[in-house]
Protein backbone atom coordinates (compact mmCIF):
# COMPACT_ATOMS: atom_id res chain seq x y z
CA UNK A 1 0.00 0.00 0.00
CA UNK A 2 1.28 3.45 -0.83
CA UNK A 3 0.64 6.08 1.84
CA UNK A 4 1.34 9.77 1.50
CA UNK A 5 1.73 11.86 4.62
CA UNK A 6 2.37 15.57 5.06
CA UNK A 7 4.49 17.53 7.54
CA UNK A 8 4.63 21.26 8.16
CA UNK A 9 7.53 23.14 9.73
CA UNK A 10 5.98 25.37 12.41
CA UNK A 11 7.18 27.72 15.12
CA UNK A 12 7.37 26.12 18.56
CA UNK A 13 3.80 26.25 19.91
CA UNK A 14 5.05 26.52 23.50
CA UNK A 15 6.93 29.75 22.99
CA UNK A 16 5.58 33.11 24.08
CA UNK A 17 4.22 34.71 20.93
CA UNK A 18 5.49 38.23 20.30
CA UNK A 19 3.96 40.35 17.56
CA UNK A 20 6.14 42.63 15.43
CA UNK A 21 5.56 46.31 16.24
CA UNK A 22 4.04 46.96 12.79
CA UNK A 23 1.64 44.01 13.19
CA UNK A 24 2.90 42.35 9.98
CA UNK A 25 3.71 39.07 11.64
CA UNK A 26 5.19 37.43 14.71
CA UNK A 27 8.77 37.81 15.88
CA UNK A 28 10.73 34.73 14.84
CA UNK A 29 14.20 35.61 16.17
CA UNK A 30 15.41 32.97 18.57
CA UNK A 31 12.34 30.84 17.90
CA UNK A 32 12.64 27.10 17.49
CA UNK A 33 10.96 25.31 14.63
CA UNK A 34 9.38 21.90 14.93
CA UNK A 35 7.25 19.43 13.07
CA UNK A 36 3.59 20.34 13.51
CA UNK A 37 2.48 18.08 16.35
CA UNK A 38 -0.69 16.85 14.60
CA UNK A 39 1.49 15.78 11.67
CA UNK A 40 3.44 13.53 14.02
CA UNK A 41 0.23 11.56 14.53
CA UNK A 42 -0.28 11.41 10.77
CA UNK A 43 3.26 10.17 10.17
CA UNK A 44 2.96 7.59 12.96
CA UNK A 45 -0.31 6.27 11.52
CA UNK A 46 1.20 6.10 8.04
CA UNK A 47 4.13 4.05 9.36
CA UNK A 48 1.76 1.77 11.27
CA UNK A 49 -0.27 1.19 8.09
CA UNK A 50 2.93 0.28 6.27
CA UNK A 51 3.96 -2.06 9.07
CA UNK A 52 0.58 -3.80 8.90
CA UNK A 53 0.04 -3.89 5.14
CA UNK A 54 3.50 -3.41 3.60
CA UNK A 55 4.19 -0.75 1.01
CA UNK A 56 5.73 2.67 1.07
CA UNK A 57 5.35 5.92 3.03
CA UNK A 58 6.06 9.13 1.11
CA UNK A 59 6.39 12.26 3.22
CA UNK A 60 5.70 15.68 1.69
CA UNK A 61 6.30 19.18 3.03
CA UNK A 62 5.54 22.57 1.54
CA UNK A 63 7.93 25.15 2.95
CA UNK A 64 11.43 26.63 2.98
CA UNK A 65 14.63 24.68 2.38
CA UNK A 66 15.00 24.28 6.15
CA UNK A 67 11.86 22.09 6.16
CA UNK A 68 14.07 19.24 4.93
CA UNK A 69 14.77 18.82 8.64
CA UNK A 70 11.13 18.02 9.39
CA UNK A 71 11.08 15.63 6.42
CA UNK A 72 14.23 13.91 7.71
CA UNK A 73 12.59 13.54 11.09
CA UNK A 74 9.67 11.72 9.47
CA UNK A 75 12.15 9.57 7.51
CA UNK A 76 13.95 8.82 10.78
CA UNK A 77 10.64 7.72 12.32
CA UNK A 78 10.29 5.23 9.45
CA UNK A 79 8.93 6.92 6.30
CA UNK A 80 10.68 5.82 3.10
CA UNK A 81 11.17 8.86 0.92
CA UNK A 82 10.59 12.60 1.01
CA UNK A 83 9.46 15.38 -1.28
CA UNK A 84 9.99 19.05 -0.44
CA UNK A 85 7.99 21.60 -2.37
CA UNK A 86 10.30 24.48 -1.75
CA UNK A 87 8.96 27.99 -1.27
CA UNK A 88 9.79 30.86 1.06
CA UNK A 89 6.31 32.35 0.62
CA UNK A 90 3.83 32.26 3.50
CA UNK A 91 1.06 30.41 1.71
CA UNK A 92 -2.65 30.21 2.49
CA UNK A 93 -4.26 26.79 2.94
CA UNK A 94 -5.71 26.93 -0.54
CA UNK A 95 -2.32 27.28 -2.25
CA UNK A 96 -0.94 24.47 -0.08
CA UNK A 97 -3.88 22.23 -1.05
CA UNK A 98 -3.42 22.94 -4.74
CA UNK A 99 0.31 22.12 -4.51
CA UNK A 100 -0.37 18.90 -2.61
CA UNK A 101 -3.07 17.94 -5.12
CA UNK A 102 -0.45 17.84 -7.88
CA UNK A 103 1.85 15.66 -5.79
CA UNK A 104 -1.00 13.30 -4.92
CA UNK A 105 -1.97 13.00 -8.59
CA UNK A 106 1.60 12.12 -9.52
CA UNK A 107 2.17 9.70 -6.62
CA UNK A 108 -1.30 8.10 -6.61
CA UNK A 109 -1.27 6.92 -2.97
CA UNK A 110 -4.19 4.95 -1.53
CA UNK A 111 -4.30 6.91 1.69
CA UNK A 112 -3.28 10.52 2.37
CA UNK A 113 -2.67 11.16 6.08
CA UNK A 114 -2.42 14.74 7.35
CA UNK A 115 -2.58 16.53 10.67
CA UNK A 116 -6.01 17.97 11.34
CA UNK A 117 -4.50 21.45 11.50
CA UNK A 118 -1.16 23.19 11.91
CA UNK A 119 -0.45 24.51 15.39
CA UNK A 120 1.02 27.80 14.11
CA UNK A 121 -2.00 29.25 12.29
CA UNK A 122 -4.62 26.69 13.42
CA UNK A 123 -6.58 27.13 10.20
CA UNK A 124 -7.80 23.53 9.83
CA UNK A 125 -8.42 23.75 6.08
CA UNK A 126 -5.68 22.14 4.01
CA UNK A 127 -6.98 18.55 4.29
CA UNK A 128 -10.54 19.47 3.42
CA UNK A 129 -9.48 21.61 0.47
CA UNK A 130 -7.14 18.92 -0.82
CA UNK A 131 -10.00 16.41 -0.78
CA UNK A 132 -12.23 18.74 -2.75
CA UNK A 133 -9.56 19.62 -5.33
CA UNK A 134 -8.98 15.91 -5.89
CA UNK A 135 -12.61 14.86 -5.64
CA UNK A 136 -11.58 12.33 -2.93
CA UNK A 137 -13.65 11.42 0.11
CA UNK A 138 -12.37 12.84 3.41
CA UNK A 139 -12.49 11.79 7.05
CA UNK A 140 -11.21 14.49 9.38
CA UNK A 141 -10.29 14.46 13.12
CA UNK A 142 -9.50 10.74 13.12
CA UNK A 143 -8.96 8.99 16.44
CA UNK A 144 -8.95 5.52 14.87
CA UNK A 145 -8.27 4.14 11.42
CA UNK A 146 -8.69 0.72 9.87
CA UNK A 147 -8.01 -0.06 6.26
CA UNK A 148 -9.31 -3.17 4.46
CA UNK A 149 -10.50 -4.13 0.98
CA UNK A 150 -10.17 -0.67 -0.51
CA UNK A 151 -12.11 1.07 2.28
CA UNK A 152 -11.09 2.98 5.38
CA UNK A 153 -13.13 2.93 8.59
CA UNK A 154 -12.42 6.07 10.55
CA UNK A 155 -13.46 6.91 14.10
CA UNK A 156 -13.83 10.68 14.31
CA UNK A 157 -13.85 13.23 17.12
CA UNK A 158 -16.89 15.43 16.63
CA UNK A 159 -18.54 18.07 18.79
CA UNK A 160 -20.21 16.32 21.68
CA UNK A 161 -18.76 12.84 21.03
CA UNK A 162 -17.52 10.59 18.27
CA UNK A 163 -18.78 9.24 14.96
CA UNK A 164 -17.62 6.53 12.59
CA UNK A 165 -17.26 7.04 8.90
CA UNK A 166 -16.43 4.62 6.08
CA UNK A 167 -14.68 6.12 3.06
CA UNK A 168 -13.63 4.52 -0.20
CA UNK A 169 -9.92 4.73 -1.02
CA UNK A 170 -8.14 6.79 -2.13
CA UNK A 171 -9.15 9.18 0.62
CA UNK A 172 -7.84 11.99 2.79
CA UNK A 173 -7.68 11.31 6.53
CA UNK A 174 -6.66 14.00 9.04
CA UNK A 175 -5.30 13.00 12.44
CA UNK A 176 -6.45 14.04 15.89
CA UNK A 177 -4.56 13.53 19.15
CA UNK A 178 -5.96 10.20 20.28
CA UNK A 179 -5.10 8.41 17.01
CA UNK A 180 -1.86 6.90 18.31
CA UNK A 181 1.27 7.65 20.29
CA UNK A 182 3.89 8.96 17.87
CA UNK A 183 7.26 7.24 18.17
CA UNK A 184 10.48 9.20 18.58
CA UNK A 185 12.99 9.15 15.79
CA UNK A 186 15.66 6.83 17.26
CA UNK A 187 19.34 7.53 16.73
CA UNK A 188 19.76 4.51 14.42
CA UNK A 189 16.65 5.77 12.58
CA UNK A 190 18.22 9.22 12.18
CA UNK A 191 21.36 7.67 10.74
CA UNK A 192 19.33 5.56 8.27
CA UNK A 193 17.30 8.60 7.25
CA UNK A 194 20.43 10.23 5.86
CA UNK A 195 20.50 7.61 3.13
CA UNK A 196 16.83 7.86 2.15
CA UNK A 197 15.88 9.79 -1.01
CA UNK A 198 14.56 13.35 -0.72
CA UNK A 199 13.44 15.22 -3.87
CA UNK A 200 12.96 18.95 -4.07
CA UNK A 201 10.43 20.53 -6.41
CA UNK A 202 9.33 24.11 -6.92
CA UNK A 203 5.72 25.29 -7.24
CA UNK A 204 6.41 26.09 -10.90
CA UNK A 205 7.69 22.52 -11.49
CA UNK A 206 4.18 21.47 -10.44
CA UNK A 207 2.58 24.15 -12.61
CA UNK A 208 0.79 25.75 -9.66
CA UNK A 209 0.27 29.49 -9.27
CA UNK A 210 0.74 30.10 -5.56
CA UNK A 211 -0.73 33.60 -5.36
CA UNK A 212 -2.62 33.70 -2.06
CA UNK A 213 -6.38 34.14 -2.10
CA UNK A 214 -6.48 34.89 1.60
CA UNK A 215 -4.19 37.65 2.80
CA UNK A 216 -3.29 38.43 6.38
CA UNK A 217 -3.71 42.13 7.01
CA UNK A 218 -2.59 42.49 10.57
CA UNK A 219 -1.67 40.58 13.74
CA UNK A 220 -3.01 41.86 17.03
CA UNK A 221 -2.71 40.53 20.56
CA UNK A 222 -6.01 39.80 22.32
CA UNK A 223 -6.90 42.40 24.96
CA UNK A 224 -5.25 41.75 28.31
CA UNK A 225 -7.51 39.91 30.75
CA UNK A 226 -8.70 41.75 33.82
CA UNK A 227 -7.37 40.44 37.12
CA UNK A 228 -9.34 37.64 38.77
CA UNK A 229 -10.93 37.64 42.21
CA UNK A 230 -10.80 35.07 44.95
CA UNK A 231 -14.05 34.47 46.82
CA UNK A 232 -14.32 32.62 50.10
CA UNK A 233 -17.44 30.51 49.55
CA UNK A 234 -19.62 28.96 46.86
CA UNK A 235 -22.45 31.26 47.91
CA UNK A 236 -20.28 34.32 47.36
CA UNK A 237 -19.31 32.93 43.95
CA UNK A 238 -22.93 32.43 42.91
CA UNK A 239 -23.80 35.90 44.10
CA UNK A 240 -20.98 37.45 42.08
CA UNK A 241 -21.83 35.41 38.99
CA UNK A 242 -25.45 36.52 39.26
CA UNK A 243 -25.08 40.16 40.26
CA UNK A 244 -21.75 41.31 38.85
CA UNK A 245 -21.03 39.04 35.89
CA UNK A 246 -24.73 38.57 35.02
CA UNK A 247 -23.72 35.04 33.97
CA UNK A 248 -26.57 33.21 35.73
Amino acid sequence: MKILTTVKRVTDPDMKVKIKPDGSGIVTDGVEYKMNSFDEYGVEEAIKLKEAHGGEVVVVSVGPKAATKEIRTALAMGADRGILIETDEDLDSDAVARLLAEVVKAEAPEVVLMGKQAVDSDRNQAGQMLASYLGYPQATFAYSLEVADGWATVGREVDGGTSTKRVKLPAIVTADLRLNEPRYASLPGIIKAKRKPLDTKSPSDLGVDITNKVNVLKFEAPPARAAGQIVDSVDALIEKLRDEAKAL
Partner: protein
Amino acid sequence: MAFDLFNPTETHLTFRQMIRQFVEREVEPQAEAHDHGEQFNQGLFRKLGELGLHGVTVPERFGGSGMDAVAAVIAHEELAASDPGFCLAYLAHSMLFVNNLAINGNDEQRQRFLPGACDGTLIGGMCMSEPDAGTDVMGMSTTAKKDGDDYILNGRKMWITNGAISDTDLGDVFLVYAHTGEKHQRSISLFLVEKGMEGFSLGQKIKGKLGMRASTTAELVFEDVRVPSKNLVGLEGGAVKSMMRNLALERLTLAAMSLGIARRCVEIMNSYAQDRKAFGQPLNRFGQIQRHIAESYAEYMAGRSYVYQVAQNLALDAYGQRIDSDGVKLYCSVMAKNVADRAIQTLGGYGYVSEYKVERLWRDAKLLEIGGGTIEAHQKNMTRDLTGLEKLL
Protein backbone atom coordinates in the same frame (compact mmCIF):
# COMPACT_ATOMS: atom_id res chain seq x y z
CA MET B 1 24.18 26.41 5.68
CA ALA B 2 25.96 28.67 8.16
CA PHE B 3 28.80 27.12 10.23
CA ASP B 4 27.37 25.49 13.32
CA LEU B 5 29.98 24.33 15.83
CA PHE B 6 27.34 22.79 18.07
CA ASN B 7 25.54 20.78 15.37
CA PRO B 8 28.26 20.01 12.84
CA THR B 9 25.99 17.84 10.66
CA GLU B 10 22.26 17.62 10.00
CA THR B 11 22.33 14.24 11.78
CA HIS B 12 23.63 15.93 14.93
CA LEU B 13 20.93 18.59 14.72
CA THR B 14 18.13 16.07 14.23
CA PHE B 15 19.55 14.01 17.08
CA ARG B 16 19.57 17.04 19.37
CA GLN B 17 15.98 17.87 18.53
CA MET B 18 14.84 14.32 19.04
CA ILE B 19 16.37 14.26 22.52
CA ARG B 20 15.03 17.70 23.34
CA GLN B 21 11.53 16.61 22.45
CA PHE B 22 11.91 13.41 24.48
CA VAL B 23 13.27 15.43 27.40
CA GLU B 24 10.38 17.91 27.36
CA ARG B 25 7.76 15.18 27.21
CA GLU B 26 9.20 12.41 29.34
CA VAL B 27 12.20 13.53 31.38
CA GLU B 28 11.14 16.92 32.68
CA PRO B 29 7.82 15.78 34.23
CA GLN B 30 9.53 13.18 36.46
CA ALA B 31 12.68 15.07 37.45
CA GLU B 32 11.56 16.75 40.63
CA ALA B 33 9.93 13.69 42.17
CA HIS B 34 12.95 11.46 41.58
CA ASP B 35 15.28 14.07 43.04
CA HIS B 36 13.04 14.39 46.05
CA GLY B 37 12.68 10.63 46.58
CA GLU B 38 16.35 9.85 45.80
CA GLN B 39 15.19 7.33 43.22
CA PHE B 40 16.55 6.05 39.94
CA ASN B 41 13.96 5.87 37.15
CA GLN B 42 14.61 2.49 35.58
CA GLY B 43 11.69 2.66 33.14
CA LEU B 44 12.93 5.92 31.70
CA PHE B 45 16.43 4.46 31.50
CA ARG B 46 15.09 1.62 29.35
CA LYS B 47 13.46 4.13 27.02
CA LEU B 48 16.86 5.71 26.34
CA GLY B 49 17.82 2.30 24.97
CA GLU B 50 14.90 2.32 22.54
CA LEU B 51 16.10 5.69 21.29
CA GLY B 52 19.61 4.34 20.69
CA LEU B 53 21.20 6.57 23.32
CA HIS B 54 23.01 3.98 25.42
CA GLY B 55 25.08 2.84 22.48
CA VAL B 56 25.63 6.28 21.02
CA THR B 57 29.36 5.67 20.48
CA VAL B 58 29.19 1.89 19.95
CA PRO B 59 29.66 0.35 16.48
CA GLU B 60 26.41 -0.71 14.83
CA ARG B 61 27.38 -4.40 14.76
CA PHE B 62 27.22 -4.49 18.58
CA GLY B 63 23.81 -2.86 18.77
CA GLY B 64 25.02 0.73 18.94
CA SER B 65 24.51 3.82 16.84
CA GLY B 66 28.13 4.34 15.75
CA MET B 67 28.25 8.08 16.40
CA ASP B 68 31.08 10.29 17.66
CA ALA B 69 32.08 12.26 20.77
CA VAL B 70 30.03 15.25 19.57
CA ALA B 71 26.86 13.15 19.62
CA ALA B 72 27.71 11.95 23.13
CA VAL B 73 28.13 15.58 24.20
CA ILE B 74 24.78 16.53 22.66
CA ALA B 75 23.02 13.72 24.53
CA HIS B 76 24.46 14.78 27.89
CA GLU B 77 23.88 18.47 27.34
CA GLU B 78 20.22 17.94 26.50
CA LEU B 79 19.45 15.45 29.28
CA ALA B 80 21.22 17.54 31.92
CA ALA B 81 19.27 20.65 30.95
CA SER B 82 16.32 18.92 32.58
CA ASP B 83 17.52 16.20 34.93
CA PRO B 84 21.26 16.09 35.71
CA GLY B 85 20.77 13.30 38.25
CA PHE B 86 19.19 10.99 35.71
CA CYS B 87 21.83 12.06 33.20
CA LEU B 88 24.61 11.03 35.60
CA ALA B 89 23.18 7.49 35.71
CA TYR B 90 23.09 7.57 31.92
CA LEU B 91 26.71 8.73 31.80
CA ALA B 92 27.95 6.09 34.22
CA HIS B 93 26.31 3.42 32.08
CA SER B 94 26.82 4.60 28.52
CA MET B 95 30.22 6.25 28.83
CA LEU B 96 31.93 4.54 31.76
CA PHE B 97 30.66 1.05 31.08
CA VAL B 98 29.38 0.77 27.50
CA ASN B 99 31.90 2.93 25.69
CA ASN B 100 34.72 1.69 27.92
CA LEU B 101 34.01 -1.91 26.98
CA ALA B 102 33.40 -1.07 23.32
CA ILE B 103 36.84 0.53 23.09
CA ASN B 104 38.88 -1.65 25.44
CA GLY B 105 37.15 -5.05 25.35
CA ASN B 106 37.57 -7.91 22.88
CA ASP B 107 34.91 -9.08 20.43
CA GLU B 108 33.72 -11.93 22.62
CA GLN B 109 33.18 -9.55 25.57
CA ARG B 110 31.49 -6.96 23.37
CA GLN B 111 29.19 -9.61 21.94
CA ARG B 112 28.36 -10.86 25.41
CA PHE B 113 27.49 -7.54 27.03
CA LEU B 114 26.97 -4.74 24.55
CA PRO B 115 23.65 -5.67 22.92
CA GLY B 116 21.94 -5.84 26.34
CA ALA B 117 23.74 -2.75 27.59
CA CYS B 118 22.79 -0.80 24.46
CA ASP B 119 19.09 -1.61 24.72
CA GLY B 120 19.12 -0.84 28.45
CA THR B 121 18.20 -4.28 29.78
CA LEU B 122 21.61 -4.48 31.49
CA ILE B 123 22.62 -1.63 33.78
CA GLY B 124 26.35 -1.09 34.06
CA GLY B 125 28.87 1.04 35.94
CA MET B 126 32.57 1.60 36.48
CA CYS B 127 34.49 1.10 39.73
CA MET B 128 37.64 3.08 40.26
CA SER B 129 37.27 5.02 43.52
CA GLU B 130 37.62 3.41 46.92
CA PRO B 131 36.82 4.44 50.48
CA ASP B 132 40.49 5.37 51.00
CA ALA B 133 41.56 6.36 47.49
CA GLY B 134 39.91 8.84 45.14
CA THR B 135 42.13 11.44 43.51
CA ASP B 136 45.07 9.20 44.29
CA VAL B 137 43.82 6.42 41.99
CA MET B 138 47.04 4.46 42.01
CA GLY B 139 46.68 4.26 45.76
CA MET B 140 43.75 1.86 45.35
CA SER B 141 43.98 -1.31 47.41
CA THR B 142 41.63 -3.68 45.59
CA THR B 143 43.62 -6.66 44.36
CA ALA B 144 43.15 -9.49 41.86
CA LYS B 145 45.36 -12.53 42.33
CA LYS B 146 45.74 -15.11 39.61
CA ASP B 147 44.48 -18.55 40.67
CA GLY B 148 44.62 -21.13 37.89
CA ASP B 149 42.43 -19.82 35.11
CA ASP B 150 40.69 -17.29 37.35
CA TYR B 151 41.42 -14.16 39.31
CA ILE B 152 40.43 -13.75 42.95
CA LEU B 153 39.20 -10.22 43.60
CA ASN B 154 39.27 -8.56 47.02
CA GLY B 155 38.49 -5.01 48.08
CA ARG B 156 35.85 -2.31 48.32
CA LYS B 157 34.76 0.30 45.82
CA MET B 158 33.12 3.55 46.85
CA TRP B 159 30.85 6.12 45.19
CA ILE B 160 29.84 3.82 42.38
CA THR B 161 27.08 5.31 40.25
CA ASN B 162 24.55 2.62 39.24
CA GLY B 163 26.14 0.36 41.86
CA ALA B 164 22.67 -0.23 43.25
CA ILE B 165 19.43 0.27 41.36
CA SER B 166 17.38 0.29 44.57
CA ASP B 167 18.07 0.04 48.31
CA THR B 168 18.79 -3.66 48.05
CA ASP B 169 19.57 -4.55 44.42
CA LEU B 170 22.93 -4.38 42.71
CA GLY B 171 23.35 -3.08 39.17
CA ASP B 172 24.02 -5.80 36.59
CA VAL B 173 27.61 -5.55 35.47
CA PHE B 174 30.69 -3.48 36.31
CA LEU B 175 34.11 -2.67 34.99
CA VAL B 176 36.34 -2.90 38.06
CA TYR B 177 39.95 -1.72 38.31
CA ALA B 178 42.28 -3.69 40.59
CA HIS B 179 45.98 -4.22 41.21
CA THR B 180 47.40 -7.38 39.68
CA GLY B 181 50.94 -6.70 40.84
CA GLU B 182 52.64 -4.94 43.68
CA LYS B 183 51.09 -1.60 44.58
CA HIS B 184 54.08 0.48 43.47
CA GLN B 185 54.18 -1.15 40.00
CA ARG B 186 51.23 0.66 38.41
CA SER B 187 50.08 -2.75 37.21
CA ILE B 188 46.36 -2.18 37.21
CA SER B 189 43.97 -4.52 35.39
CA LEU B 190 40.34 -4.21 34.40
CA PHE B 191 37.70 -6.87 35.08
CA LEU B 192 34.08 -7.48 34.22
CA VAL B 193 32.26 -8.33 37.43
CA GLU B 194 28.66 -9.49 37.21
CA LYS B 195 25.82 -9.47 39.67
CA GLY B 196 25.41 -12.99 41.04
CA MET B 197 29.14 -13.77 41.25
CA GLU B 198 29.81 -15.27 44.64
CA GLY B 199 31.36 -12.80 47.08
CA PHE B 200 30.18 -9.72 45.17
CA SER B 201 27.69 -7.72 47.23
CA LEU B 202 26.16 -4.36 47.92
CA GLY B 203 27.86 -2.68 50.86
CA GLN B 204 25.43 0.20 51.06
CA LYS B 205 23.37 2.46 48.91
CA ILE B 206 24.59 5.92 49.83
CA LYS B 207 21.82 8.22 51.00
CA GLY B 208 21.52 11.89 51.72
CA LYS B 209 23.42 13.21 48.70
CA LEU B 210 23.30 16.99 48.18
CA GLY B 211 22.47 16.60 44.51
CA MET B 212 22.37 14.07 41.68
CA ARG B 213 19.78 12.33 43.77
CA ALA B 214 18.05 10.70 40.80
CA SER B 215 21.18 8.58 40.29
CA THR B 216 22.16 5.93 42.77
CA THR B 217 25.56 5.82 44.40
CA ALA B 218 26.80 2.75 46.24
CA GLU B 219 29.62 1.08 48.03
CA LEU B 220 30.40 -2.32 46.54
CA VAL B 221 32.15 -5.18 48.30
CA PHE B 222 34.33 -7.87 46.70
CA GLU B 223 35.21 -10.80 48.96
CA ASP B 224 37.14 -13.57 47.25
CA VAL B 225 35.17 -13.06 44.07
CA ARG B 226 36.29 -15.62 41.49
CA VAL B 227 36.44 -13.87 38.12
CA PRO B 228 37.19 -16.04 35.06
CA SER B 229 40.02 -14.82 32.81
CA LYS B 230 37.58 -14.34 29.94
CA ASN B 231 36.37 -11.37 32.04
CA LEU B 232 39.79 -9.71 32.02
CA VAL B 233 39.48 -6.66 29.77
CA GLY B 234 42.65 -5.89 27.83
CA LEU B 235 46.01 -7.14 29.04
CA GLU B 236 46.90 -8.01 32.60
CA GLY B 237 48.56 -4.96 34.10
CA GLY B 238 47.67 -2.83 31.08
CA ALA B 239 44.58 -1.01 32.28
CA VAL B 240 46.08 2.39 33.11
CA LYS B 241 45.91 3.34 29.44
CA SER B 242 42.29 2.23 29.05
CA MET B 243 41.46 4.11 32.23
CA MET B 244 43.00 7.34 30.89
CA ARG B 245 41.35 6.91 27.51
CA ASN B 246 37.93 6.53 29.07
CA LEU B 247 38.50 9.34 31.55
CA ALA B 248 38.90 11.78 28.64
CA LEU B 249 35.40 11.00 27.36
CA GLU B 250 34.02 10.93 30.90
CA ARG B 251 35.31 14.43 31.59
CA LEU B 252 34.12 15.75 28.27
CA THR B 253 30.59 14.48 28.85
CA LEU B 254 30.57 15.68 32.46
CA ALA B 255 31.48 19.11 31.05
CA ALA B 256 28.58 18.70 28.62
CA MET B 257 26.30 18.14 31.60
CA SER B 258 27.52 21.43 33.05
CA LEU B 259 26.53 23.10 29.78
CA GLY B 260 23.00 21.74 30.00
CA ILE B 261 22.69 23.00 33.58
CA ALA B 262 24.06 26.43 32.65
CA ARG B 263 21.80 26.80 29.63
CA ARG B 264 18.71 26.01 31.66
CA CYS B 265 19.70 28.45 34.39
CA VAL B 266 20.31 31.22 31.86
CA GLU B 267 16.90 30.58 30.29
CA ILE B 268 15.16 30.63 33.64
CA MET B 269 16.81 33.79 34.96
CA ASN B 270 16.43 35.56 31.62
CA SER B 271 12.69 35.02 31.43
CA TYR B 272 12.10 35.61 35.13
CA ALA B 273 13.93 38.94 34.98
CA GLN B 274 11.58 40.09 32.22
CA ASP B 275 8.40 39.11 34.02
CA ARG B 276 9.20 40.06 37.60
CA LYS B 277 8.83 43.73 38.45
CA ALA B 278 10.36 45.72 41.31
CA PHE B 279 10.24 49.47 41.80
CA GLY B 280 7.96 49.62 38.78
CA GLN B 281 10.37 48.03 36.34
CA PRO B 282 11.27 44.54 35.14
CA LEU B 283 14.30 43.16 37.00
CA ASN B 284 16.35 43.08 33.83
CA ARG B 285 16.49 46.88 33.81
CA PHE B 286 18.72 46.82 36.87
CA GLY B 287 22.45 46.84 36.19
CA GLN B 288 23.31 44.25 38.82
CA ILE B 289 20.80 41.82 37.34
CA GLN B 290 22.05 42.58 33.84
CA ARG B 291 25.49 41.58 35.03
CA HIS B 292 24.18 38.23 36.30
CA ILE B 293 22.45 37.49 33.04
CA ALA B 294 25.02 38.77 30.56
CA GLU B 295 28.06 37.26 32.29
CA SER B 296 26.28 33.95 32.67
CA TYR B 297 25.40 33.85 29.00
CA ALA B 298 28.92 34.80 27.88
CA GLU B 299 30.54 32.22 30.18
CA TYR B 300 28.09 29.57 29.05
CA MET B 301 28.90 30.27 25.41
CA ALA B 302 32.63 30.27 26.09
CA GLY B 303 32.36 26.90 27.82
CA ARG B 304 30.12 25.56 25.13
CA SER B 305 32.52 26.55 22.38
CA TYR B 306 35.43 24.96 24.24
CA VAL B 307 33.54 21.70 24.80
CA TYR B 308 32.43 21.30 21.19
CA GLN B 309 35.85 22.26 19.87
CA VAL B 310 37.40 19.51 22.01
CA ALA B 311 34.65 17.02 21.17
CA GLN B 312 35.23 17.51 17.43
CA ASN B 313 38.83 16.46 17.88
CA LEU B 314 38.43 13.69 20.44
CA ALA B 315 39.03 10.33 18.84
CA LEU B 316 37.24 7.71 20.95
CA ASP B 317 40.07 5.20 20.72
CA ALA B 318 43.01 7.56 21.13
CA TYR B 319 45.13 8.10 24.22
CA GLY B 320 46.83 11.25 25.51
CA GLN B 321 44.19 13.93 25.04
CA ARG B 322 44.25 14.91 28.65
CA ILE B 323 44.92 18.59 28.87
CA ASP B 324 41.72 19.70 27.18
CA SER B 325 39.46 17.00 28.56
CA ASP B 326 40.58 18.16 31.98
CA GLY B 327 40.33 21.76 30.80
CA VAL B 328 36.72 21.63 29.66
CA LYS B 329 35.60 20.05 32.88
CA LEU B 330 37.62 22.45 35.03
CA TYR B 331 36.11 25.43 33.27
CA CYS B 332 32.54 24.24 32.76
CA SER B 333 31.93 22.70 36.19
CA VAL B 334 32.85 25.93 37.96
CA MET B 335 31.02 27.99 35.32
CA ALA B 336 27.76 26.04 35.72
CA LYS B 337 27.85 26.24 39.49
CA ASN B 338 28.37 30.01 39.29
CA VAL B 339 25.61 30.40 36.70
CA ALA B 340 23.20 28.38 38.83
CA ASP B 341 24.14 30.52 41.79
CA ARG B 342 23.42 33.72 39.88
CA ALA B 343 20.12 32.27 38.71
CA ILE B 344 19.07 31.70 42.31
CA GLN B 345 20.18 35.22 43.16
CA THR B 346 18.21 36.69 40.26
CA LEU B 347 15.06 34.88 41.38
CA GLY B 348 15.48 35.88 45.01
CA GLY B 349 13.29 33.83 47.37
CA TYR B 350 11.67 32.04 44.44
CA GLY B 351 15.10 30.80 43.41
CA TYR B 352 15.57 29.10 46.76
CA VAL B 353 12.65 26.69 46.41
CA SER B 354 12.14 23.71 44.12
CA GLU B 355 9.37 25.14 41.95
CA TYR B 356 11.73 27.21 39.82
CA LYS B 357 14.23 24.35 39.41
CA VAL B 358 17.38 26.42 39.83
CA GLU B 359 17.94 25.22 43.39
CA ARG B 360 18.05 21.61 42.16
CA LEU B 361 20.33 22.54 39.28
CA TRP B 362 22.63 24.34 41.73
CA ARG B 363 22.84 21.26 43.96
CA ASP B 364 23.50 19.03 40.95
CA ALA B 365 26.08 21.44 39.50
CA LYS B 366 28.28 21.10 42.59
CA LEU B 367 28.96 17.42 42.00
CA LEU B 368 30.66 18.20 38.72
CA GLU B 369 33.48 19.90 40.63
CA ILE B 370 34.11 16.56 42.41
CA GLY B 371 33.08 13.49 40.38
CA GLY B 372 35.22 12.31 37.47
CA GLY B 373 38.13 14.13 39.07
CA THR B 374 38.04 17.10 41.42
CA ILE B 375 38.83 20.54 40.05
CA GLU B 376 42.09 20.37 42.02
CA ALA B 377 42.97 17.15 40.21
CA HIS B 378 42.36 18.87 36.86
CA GLN B 379 44.58 21.76 37.94
CA LYS B 380 47.29 19.32 38.95
CA ASN B 381 47.09 17.29 35.73
CA MET B 382 46.93 20.29 33.45
CA THR B 383 49.82 22.07 35.04
CA ARG B 384 51.92 18.93 34.75
CA ASP B 385 51.01 18.63 31.06
CA LEU B 386 51.78 22.30 30.48
CA THR B 387 55.15 22.11 32.19
CA GLY B 388 57.84 22.33 29.54
CA LEU B 389 55.50 23.70 26.89
CA GLU B 390 56.98 26.97 25.77
CA LYS B 391 54.44 28.03 23.21
CA LEU B 392 50.78 27.25 22.76
CA LEU B 393 50.28 26.70 19.06
